[in-house]
Structure formats: structure tokens, C-alpha cells
């Protein structure tokens, strides 16, 4: 309670001391407020709300097929569309500004002022309010209406344009990928034609061949080694055998035959007579054989003389030797054949290895090409599908099915001005006229305290207060003071009267 009194004193004391200032401020503030209220331009605001539907009937139907362009901050998007150059230019026409034929700079200024006086706000989830303020109620109405109409028109155009550009973009991409795909196919084709021996499974084939060749080489080499051993052993055996074996000569054979027949004859003579046919026959045979033998010997002698070889049938080739020799020949032939085969197989193996290398390199290239091709193919397929989606979206927007916009509350013709009214200025003036000086004093007391009584003083300085002296007012001064009070009261009263009169005039007029 004491605190409250202190605060009141804190305000009252300086207010009383500087009462002239208080009254002066009160009067000036109020007069200014009245003047401001009188001259405050009347502004008329017209507004309209537009309903923007987020989902349309087709939306769920086309789920996943058509890509619906999302509209999130409708207010912001509406602002973007409305404040666009195109709409603003049309608004200039609608608002009648173009009648004065402003130059581009003036147009720019007018557009700026239109933008400054246009407020676009989200009033609900699907509602956007567009309001425009102008001194002319007719213009305010016209411009608001124009803005809303143009906004709706613009939104459809915008959306259609957006969908179309999306479609065009995807279409372009599709074409690009088509080209890429074609190039990949071409590259594969060229590669295949350049690598004829390279077929599917060629590598396995080559590997198989190589291993086959290798095992063959091993086998042949083994055989060659065996044949060589055989050859060596045959040669060793051959050196131990004579080339000819001393066989019975013809003459010898004849002699032995003669002897044999003689013995037979002898035997037969024992039992038979000389006339015995067998004995006779044998005797003939012996004679014949003797003749042959003589002939034979004659031939030999003759041959010795002439020096020509007479094949003596009694000297015959050594059969073992012959056999070995033939084996050796055979082995040599076999070896030569084997060597030749080995050489051939080795050559083939080298060729196959070379081929394997080539196949490996070609395989990497092929894989690359195939991968490119696959990727392009996938993307191309995906894009094709997307293009169809985009086409559907575009068709939707073209038929204005993608976005549902309608005027929820049409623009109205403003009857009452908006903004602060005269009465606000009046009340504001009265309140400010009182609060301003009081606040000033209060603030001053906080910043630079003034001394009003002993309590104040001793709160800050510890010097005894000997006395508090009242103002000595002489009679003349008393009169002057009274006059002052009258003048001040009169000033306040006249200001109040002015306020009442002006308010009355304002309300009736």
C-alpha cells in the first residue's frame, strides 16, 4: 500500500511541478491526434477467398499412375502467381491505371504499391484469402476480383504448363535413352562381328582343348621316351649279332641228299637185287644229283673267275639280326612320327593359348558392352513407363481435372473503410496525452532521480534534513497562480470540446 502511494507521489509530484508541460503535451498530442485522424486516408479493403482442393476425384483412381503435382504452401504459391509480371500487368488494366498511360517506371511504382497493398494468406487448409486495399472502394473491389480471377486462370495454366514441361522432359529423356540403347546394341553387334571365333562357351571349348593337347603331349612325350629306350636297347642287341648266318650251301645239300640216297640204296641192296625198281630209281636219282652238284660247282668256279657274286644259297641272313634290324627300323619310324605329332600338337596348343587370351580380352569388353546395354535397357523401360504416366497427368491438367480451384467467397464491394478510424485516434490521443508526460516523469525519476522530500533525500544521501520549507506565495503570486490554473484548465477543457465537436462532425458527416 505504501509502495502504491509512493508510486503515485512519484508521478504526481513532478506532474504538479511541471503542470504546464503536462497540459502542453496533453494539448499538443490531442490536437495532433485529431489532425492525424482527420487526415488519415480512408482505405477500403476488399477480399475474396479461393478454395483449392488438394485431392480430386481422379486422384485416387489414378493412384500410382499419374504423378500429381503437390501444392503445399498454397498461400505462397498463390502469391508467386499473383505477383507475377503477367497478372500485374493485367491488373493495371483492370484497376484503370493504364488510362493515364504511365511510363514503365511509373508502372513499376504502381505495381509495387499494388503488391504492398495485397495480402495473400492461408486462412484454412484449403483456403487462400486474397485482399487488396485502396483508397477507392471501387478500385479495391475491381482489383480484388481481377486478382482472384487471374489467379485461378493462372493456376490452371501454370499447372498445365508444369505437367507439359514434365512430360516434355521425360520424353526428351526417353529419346536420349533410346539413342543410347541403340548405340549399345550397335556396339555389341560390331563386337560380335569382329570376334567371330568368340561364341558362347568358346572359352570352355578352348580350355578343354588346351587340356586335351596338354595330356596328349604328355602321352606322346612318354611314348617317345619309351621308344628311345627301346631304340637304345635294340641298337645294343644289334651290335651283338652277326649280320649273316652260315647256312648249308646248295652243293652241300645235294651231297647230303646223295649220301642219304646212297645209304638208302645200300639198305635196299641188302634185300633187293640190283634190278629192283627202287634201287634203280635211287641210282638214277643219285646220278641226277651228282650231275646237279657238278653243275653247281662249275657255276661257282665260273663266278669266282668272273668276279660276279654268285648267290650262294647256302649263305643266308641271320634271322635274329634281321628281326632286330626290322624292329629298330620300326622304332625309328615310330619315333619320327611321334616327334612330328608332338611338334604339331605343341603348335596347336600355342595357338589355343593365344586364342584363350584373345577370348578373355573379348570377354571383358563383351561384359562391359552387355552391362551398358542392360542399364540402358532398364532405364529406357522405366522412362517409357514414366512417360506414359506423365502423358496421363498432362492430359488431366489439360482438361483441368488435376486441380480444383473455385471462389469460396467472391470479392465484395467495401462499404466501410478499413484501418484505424477517427475514434481510435481520439482515444489514442487522450491516452497518449496522459501517459506520455507521466511516463516521461517516471522515466526521468528512474534515470535521474529528483529530490522531492526528506525521505527521498535520505534514501540516497546521509545528511540530516534540517527543514522542509513550503512555497512562500505572495498575494500577487496567488492571483497569478489562480490565473495559471484557469488557463491550464481552460486549455484542457477546450481540447476536450474540440475532441467532442470533431468526433460529432466526423460521425454525422
Amino acid at each position, binding site marked *: 500500500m505504501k509502495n502504491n502511494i509512493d508510486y503515485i*507521489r512519484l508521478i504526481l509530484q513532478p506532474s504538479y511541478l511541471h503542470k504546464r508541460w503536462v497540459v502542453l503535451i496533453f494539448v499538443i498530442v490531442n490536437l495532433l491526434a485529431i489532425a492525424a485522424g482527420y487526415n488519415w486516408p480512408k482505405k477500403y479493403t476488399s477480399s475474396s477467398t479461393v478454395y483449392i482442393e488438394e485431392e480430386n476425384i481422379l486422384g485416387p483412381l489414378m493412384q500410382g499412375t499419374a504423378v500429381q503435382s503437390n501444392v503445399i504452401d498454397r498461400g505462397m504459391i498463390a502469391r508467386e502467381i499473383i505477383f507475377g509480371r503477367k497478372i500485374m500487368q493485367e491488373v493495371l488494366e483492370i484497376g484503370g491505371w493504364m488510362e493515364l498511360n504511365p511510363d514503365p517506371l511509373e508502372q513499376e511504382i504502381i505495381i509495387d504499391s499494388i503488391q504492398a497493398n495485397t495480402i495473400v494468406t492461408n486462412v484454412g487448409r484449403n483456403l487462400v484469402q486474397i485482399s487488396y486495399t485502396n483508397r477507392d472502394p471501387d478500385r479495391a473491389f475491381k482489383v480484388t476480383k481481377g486478382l482472384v480471377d487471374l489467379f485461378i486462370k493462372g493456376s490452371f495454366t501454370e499447372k498445365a504448363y508444369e505437367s507439359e514441361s514434365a512430360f516434355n522432359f521425360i520424353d526428351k529423356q526417353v529419346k536420349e535413352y533410346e539413342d543410347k540403347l541403340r548405340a549399345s546394341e550397335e556396339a555389341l553387334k560390331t563386337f560380335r562381328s569382329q570376334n567371330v571365333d568368340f561364341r558362347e562357351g568358346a572359352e570352355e571349348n578352348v580350355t578343354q582343348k588346351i587340356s586335351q593337347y596338354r595330356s596328349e603331349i604328355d602321352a606322346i612325350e612318354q611314348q617317345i621316351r619309351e621308344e628311345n629306350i627301346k631304340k637304345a636297347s635294340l641298337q645294343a642287341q644289334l651290335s651283338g649279332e652277326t649280320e649273316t648266318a652260315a647256312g648249308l650251301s646248295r652243293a652241300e645239300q645235294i651231297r647230303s641228299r646223295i649220301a642219304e640216297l646212297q645209304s638208302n640204296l645200300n639198305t635196299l641192296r641188302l634185300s633187293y637185287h640190283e634190278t629192283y625198281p627202287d634201287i634203280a630209281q635211287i641210282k638214277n636219282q643219285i646220278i641226277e644229283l651228282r650231275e646237279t652238284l657238278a653243275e653247281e660247282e662249275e657255276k661257282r668256279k665260273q663266278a669266282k673267275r668272273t668276279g660276279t657274286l654268285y648267290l650262294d644259297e647256302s649263305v643266308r641272313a641271320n634271322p635274329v639280326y634281321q628281326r632286330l634290324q626290322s624292329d629298330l627300323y620300326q622304332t625309328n619310324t615310330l619315333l619320327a612320327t611321334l616327334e612330328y605329332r608332338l611338334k604339331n600338337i605343341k603348335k596347336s596348343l600355342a595357338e589355343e593359348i593365344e586364342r584363350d587370351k584373345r577370348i578373355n580380352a573379348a570377354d571383358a569388353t563383351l561384359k562391359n558392352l552387355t552391362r551398358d546395354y542392360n542399364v540402358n535397357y532398364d532405364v529406357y523401360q522405366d522412362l517409357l513407363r514414366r512417360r506414359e504416366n506423365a502423358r496421363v497427368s498432362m492430359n488431366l491438367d489439360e482438361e483441368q481435372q488435376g486441380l480444383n480451384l473455385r471462389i469460396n467467397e467472391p470479392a465484395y464491394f467495401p462499404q466501410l473503410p478499413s484501418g484505424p478510424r477517427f475514434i481510435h485516434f481520439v482515444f489514442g490521443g487522450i491516452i497518449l496525452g496522459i501517459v506520455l508526460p507521466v511516463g516521461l516523469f517516471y522515466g526521468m525519476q528512474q534515470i*535521474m532521480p529528483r529530490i522531492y522530500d526528506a525521505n527521498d533525500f535520505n534514501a540516497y544521501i546521509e545528511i540530516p534534513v*534540517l527543514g522542509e520549507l513550503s512555497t512562500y506565495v505572495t498575494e500577487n503570486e496567488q492571483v497569478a497562480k489562480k490565473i495559471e490554473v484557469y488557463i491550464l484548465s481552460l486549455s484542457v477543457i477546450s481540447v476536450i470540446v474540440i475532441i467532442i465537436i470533431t468526433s460529432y462532425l466526423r460521425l454525422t458527416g
Partner: protein
Amino acid sequence: MSKIEDALKKSRSDNSTELVKTSSNVQSYINSDISLMEYDEQVAIGVLSNLKIIHYGMKDQKIFSEFRSLRTKLIQKSENTNLCIMIYSSLPGGGSSYVAANLAAAIALDEKKTSLLVNCDFTCKPDYENLLGQYHGGLIDFLSSDLPVEDIIYRSGIKRLRIIPAGSTNDTFSEYFTLRKFHELLQQIKGRYSDRYIILDAPSAMNPADIRLLSEFVDFGVLIVPYGKDSLDNIDKASKLISKEKMIGVVINNIPEIFAGK
């Protein structure tokens, strides 16, 4: 001020012969007893009212009693009968002259006491100097010439109250308070009567050098704080111009009637 002067003229014309007599007989009063001063002629009450000087039978008894109680407090502070008090305000126009004159008048109310009001503030002419009769030099004239002391001590028209006016104004006031002559003057007038109270009406604290110099000669200093006009900082500074022992206290002056006595 013209009204005050008119009133004075009127009062003078009433007592003209006696005023002349007063001035011519200065010498006879100098060495006289207080009893002799009882015969001082009284200035018209209207004049005192206009000059804002308290007197018996004044309308506003509150102010009268305020000054009397102030006087009593000051006298109680001193055992020395011949007290020399300096009155200065924190701001120019703070009311030091008004308080000094009324304090002197309040002291003079006591029949056993006399007071001498010395105007040391050369910056402006205070109201009370209008009480003086024929003017023939003041403090400055005394200090700067061979004027006898008697010539600068004036009757005020108030019993037992004498006044030394500032005298012809000169720019370099400060130098006067350093003169030995000034000191001697104070000693002399102090000792003239027993129970004489000397009140120095000093310049405001805006002249700190003067205050410091004058405080050397006085027993006490009283700081006048104008109601609601001065900032705390300035008052604090002003109060520190004289030593703590001599700083006897402050007086808050000019409190509007509706806030007085709260």
C-alpha cells in the same frame, strides 16, 4: 519587481525622515547595545510580504513556524553564540537568498539576538536588498576600497537585522574571498555584538571555488535543495563541497502547499 519597488517607495515616503536619520546615524548604532537596535523602525508589513520575508502576524503561519523551527535547530547546534552560517543552494535560483533572509529574520525575532545578513552572491541582486535605504557601497566596495565597515552595514527596517549588500558588481568576484580583509571583516562583525548571528548568502554550488573559500570562514554550511528541480548527482556533489563537520544539513525549499507536510 516593479510592484515591490512601488511598495518600497511608498514605505520610504512614509518614513523618509527616519530613513535619512538612520543612515546618517550609522555611527551611533555601531557601538550601541542590542537594546538600542530595538528602536529600529519597522518596514510596512506589505513590503515584507512582497519580499517574501517572514514577520509576526503574517498570513501563512506554516511558513513562519517552519523558519522558526529551522532557526531553533541551527541555534541548538551551536554553543557558540556568535554563529556564522553559510547558506548556498545546489542550483542557481535554488532559493538561498530567500532562505538566508528569512533565517536572519527568524533569528532577529528573538529580542536577545541580532543577525547580520551578508550577501556574498554577486551574480544577482536578491529581493532583500530592496530593504536597504540609501545605498552607499557594499561588500565589494569595502573590499576594494578604503570604505569604513560602518558604511556597508545597512539597517533593514526589521528589528535586530542588519544587511551587508554585495555592492557594485564586478566580474572577478572570486578573488575577494581570498583577501585578508574579508576575513578580518568577518572577525570584526562577529565580535561586534554578543549573540550576533552572521548569515552568508553564498552563491550556488555552480561556483564550487566560492563555496570552498567561504566555507573556510564559517561555522556551518546549509545546503538548499530546490524541490524537484535538481538531480541527485548534483545535490550529492554540492553537499561534498564543504567538509563534513561544517555540513550541518540540507533544507528542501519550495515545496508546493499540497505536498507540504506529507
